[in-house]
């Protein structure tokens, strides 16, 4: 399931809801990205490309499910203004065994970082600075296209 929302969410509750009633899945991996309270940043603002966002995240999810058959996935990505400590993005993957869960969750995050249409702005006081994507994120995503 994919949710793109401005509302804050509760990572622990999302993790528990995701696993509720499943007795066939031995291994669940979750990732949560939080706003870091570095320097004097008072907030992070994420802009996105509305309906297009769900489409693109959907493509990433389908790729993961094809690559690791049998996994289940849950993705939440927020947009709008968030304070330090707040969750931005949540990914959970469950499967029968841990290797698939770890690898698929890593793949989902590497792909979201470089392919989901979001743009980040760090707010300090009344100034905003747009964040450039990092070379390490492109490198992380690229490894998946080189591997079968």
């Amino acid at each position, binding site marked *: 399931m994919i949710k793109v929302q401005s509302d804050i969410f509760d990572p622990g509750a999302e993790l528990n809801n995701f696993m509720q009633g499943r007795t066939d899945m031995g291994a669940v991996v979750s990732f949560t990205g939080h706003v870091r309270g570095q320097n004097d940043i008072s907030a992070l603002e*994420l*802009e996105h*490309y509305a309906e297009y966002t769900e489409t693109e995240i959907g493509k990433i999810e389908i790729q993961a499910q094809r690559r690791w058959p049998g996994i289940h996935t849950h993705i939440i990505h927020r947009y709008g203004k968030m304070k330090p400590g707040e969750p931005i993005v949540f990914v959970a993957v469950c499967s029968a065994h841990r290797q698939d869960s770890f690898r698929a969750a890593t793949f989902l995050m590497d792909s979201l970082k470089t392919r989901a*249409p*979001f*743009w*980040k702005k760090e707010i300090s006081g009344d100034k905003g600075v*747009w964040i450039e*994507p990092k070379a390490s994120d492109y490198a992380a995503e690229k490894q998946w296209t080189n591997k079968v």
Partner: protein
Amino acid sequence: MTRIVFLGWLKEMAGCAERQVELPSLATPEELIAFVAGDNQSLAEQLAEPSIRMIINKSVLAGKTLPDTIEEVAFMPPLSGG
């Protein structure tokens, strides 16, 4: 009417997040950029950068051929989500 969308920091350069325009007959992405940028020379140069992706009708433009009907054009700078 066609919806023109400027994403991320492009909206600050364009002076708006989106606007509605009546597109003339256009043959190539270059002509589309020239029309959208109008007199804004720095915007025209920026939109032509290879790092800026053009999304037409919510699909990435592949090749040099514009679709017959253009309902929406979005210009995307490099992403920084997650």
